[in-house]
């Protein structure tokens, strides 16, 4: 018989901190992690102390305080190693990799993720293997090595399936879909996004559902299934509105603009892209893509100068985000403008 007695005590500070972190409440999470560290240290629970430090480091990464995050993560690793807490140490290595990524030290970051994978395999910690592989994929994607990114995301899916981490698998499918779409493998991208949507619906993971629905629009448009693209955009807008995700809403509007453009409804395309720019105002890759769409629209209108201006804005933003692949695509668009092909995508 498998007896499952509920935990009798109230959730620990560490668990509460994790919950606050998941919800994006960084200040509360930081405070709870700090308290958890103090109590764990006083009680001599060394592994918990290391975990609390690592949690604090993660919160600092979110706040882009990489140097402080590095100090705490390094201390967490040190404590875990001295205490023989191998799993805690392995996870600290992964967090250090994320910090290096934030510091744009790609080589060091990649090496740390590789080490994290090795340590996690020694422990049989499949979830950590998947997380580190996924992180390595993000680096490859950022550097424009889409095939390597795709391979790394596939690896992470293998690990998440093994560990039963559906939520993590969800992120991996979304990333895999994005890499495949960039490789212009539309049918595959559609399958990967659809798979992510299935899992997100099962888990009621509305925030990611908004992104997945929006991302699926591109392969559907490229395949020529405009009705399905329309439907997926409706889903994206519903989910984005439910969680107040302006970025996801901006992405959905961007694809609505393209849909309208393809149908020859330039006025609607204009309206959607303007709304997208007004909605997604943060300097994100998504905003860069909306600017690209604006450039495509201008090119289709025969307004080459306005198109080039939009492409250049998008290029500048993409460059600042180290999105090399996007920069290359924009360069190609600008080149086409200058060589009389009119630019824009079909």
């Amino acid at each position: 018989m498998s007896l499952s007695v509920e935990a009798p005590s109230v959730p620990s500070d560490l668990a509460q901190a994790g919950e606050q972190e998941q919800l994006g409440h960084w200040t509360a999470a930081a405070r709870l992690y700090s308290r958890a560290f103090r109590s764990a240290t006083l009680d001599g629970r060394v592994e918990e102390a290391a975990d609390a430090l690592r949690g604090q480091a993660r919160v600092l990464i979110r706040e882009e305080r990489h140097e402080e995050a590095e100090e705490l993560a390094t201390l967490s690793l040190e404590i875990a190693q001295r205490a023989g807490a191998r799993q805690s140490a392995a996870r600290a290595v992964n967090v250090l990799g994320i910090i290096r990524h934030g510091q744009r030290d790609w080589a060091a970051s990649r090496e740390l993720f590789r080490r994290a994978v090795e340590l996690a395999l020694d422990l049989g910690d499949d979830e950590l293997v998947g997380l580190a592989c996924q992180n390595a994929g993000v680096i490859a994607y950022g550097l424009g090595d889409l095939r390597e990114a795709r391979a790394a995301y596939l690896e992470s899916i293998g690990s998440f399936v093994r560990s039963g981490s559906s939520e993590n698998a969800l992120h991996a499918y979304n990333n895999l879909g994005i890499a495949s779409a960039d490789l212009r493998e539309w049918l595959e991208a559609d399958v990967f996004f659809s798979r992510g949507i299935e899992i997100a619906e099962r888990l009621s993971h509305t925030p990611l559902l908004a992104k997945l629905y929006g991302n699926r629009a591109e392969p559907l448009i490229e395949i020529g299934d405009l009705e399905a693209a329309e439907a997926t955009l409706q889903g994206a807008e519903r989910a984005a509105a439910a969680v107040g995700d302006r970025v996801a809403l901006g992405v959905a509007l961007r694809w609505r603009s393209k849909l309208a453009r393809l149908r020859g409804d330039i006025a609607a395309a204009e309206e959607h892209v303007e709304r997208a720019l007004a909605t997604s105002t943060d300097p994100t890759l998504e905003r860069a893509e909306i600017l690209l769409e604006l450039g495509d629209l201008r090119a289709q209108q025969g307004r080459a100068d306005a198109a080039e201006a939009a492409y250049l804005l998008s290029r500048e933003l993409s460059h600042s985000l180290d999105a090399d692949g996007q920069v290359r695509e924009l360069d190609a668009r600008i080149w086409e403008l200058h060589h009389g092909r009119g630019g824009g995508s079909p």
Partner: protein
Amino acid sequence: MDLRDALLRIYESSGPGTAVRALGVVLSECAGVGHTVWLARDGTVAGVWPGGEPLSPEVAAAAARAERPGIRPLDGDTGGEAMVLPLHEDDGALVLVGAAGTFGDPAHWETLGAAFARVAAQHRAYAQVEGERDLLRQRAEESEALHVLGLAANRTLDPDEVLTLVARFTRTLLGAHYVTVNTLAEGSIRTVAAVGLRAQAPADDPFAARVAAARKPLTLQGDGGGTAVPEPYHAAEGMRVGLGVPLALFGETFGSLVIGYRRPYDLAPRDTRLALTLAGHAAVAISNARLHGALAQRTGELERANEELRWTTEAKDRFFASMSHELRTPLNSVLGYHSLLLEGVVGELEPQARSFLERAQRSTRNLLHLVNDVLDLSKIEAGKLELVNAPMRMRAIVEEALATIEPLAAARQIAVEIEPWPPLPAVHTDADRVRQILINLLSNAVKFTDHGRVTLSATVAGDGAAPGAGADGAHGWIEVHVADTGPGIAAENQERIFHEFEQIVGATARGGTGLGLPISRKLARLLGGDLTVRSDLGHGSVFTLRLPVRSDEPVR
């Protein structure tokens, strides 16, 4: 204690754990003193409410052995008692302890014990269903993941990329430290893709070879799970547990997939099942790569052979054209001097000298014919024969050809006649080439006819619609037939006579190079028509030259 209330709370519980807590609450409320509820299984405390108070191992062990509810004294000097409720259906025991030792009617506790048992049974059934659901979900997730791998792998024909992808995915899906993909080639095994190795891939992995030879999954285990496996290469890699599966497709084994764990690991049937599926992906990739490679090699060979053939043909054509020119010039000169000598330009010849000179002249003429034929053939095959098309009347050409052949016919005493000539349209063609064909047909007919005659006739063929009529101005066909009363041609030889340098048995005695008919057919086809034969052995032959009419001039 309100038994109904207690039972209700127990039945509303989601499992034994919450039931214990519910009962604890009931006890607290009804007795007004602190009770502690333990849940003990196999002599070990598995749950406690509200917590804090220990249960002695003796009481826990007694609870595990108990068959009926009973009250036992607690250890120590607390003076308390424990009510033991055995939950046999649950394979465990519930231990209730009242610190004040006031349990009341034991029958109530038996009822509660049965309620606990039912809750536990329900929970067990629910847990089983949940477990099965999780298992099915995991299978579905695995299946989806394998499908995703297949999609990604199908995107490339590069076997290295596919095999590395399979190796990487295998590593994470099976939680292994390293994976190698090994292929068989010419009796030995070679590692073609690997992930997670510390050292270079081995030149020859005996374990991988054994798996391929066995054509079934094999495992490697170190002694006691903590030591290295008894394979030097894999021991050096730190393998504690290994799994190898064959790469097989359509009954053919291509190699093996080896999966290594550097930690103690219990291989499950799931691992083997997944490894075999992944090996299938690798086998497909290898098979595709081999087929693709073989196809590419064969295509290359054919392209090279084609190139050589083209070069050889061109060289042959150049040689024939060149040699024919080089031969024709001196032969014309020899013929010229022969003629001068025979005409007595340098004095009257002795009869025997004349006879010798006439033989030499005949041989030289034959040689010149052969050279001319070879030159024509090489020009046609090289596509360098230029046609000079102009409107012409077929009757005029036929008469010219007949005039040319008349001396030969007279010498052989063979009558050559033109049958009543129908009205024919003018044709737009190369008159010299048509004449050449007709002379060849007529001379053959005369040469091969010992008795009887040769006749020439013409017809307008079909309904007047030639292929491409309207598109190129063609308006029908005209056919010229040359019939003889010679020995005829056997059916099996009727195509051979149109092949270069092929003369059927008995034809050589009649002279000729064997090139006349092949050249004539090629010329006829160049002119847009054809040359065919109908013949019955012993009943002569009819050669038909068919030419398209490409003129708007009216039928004469």
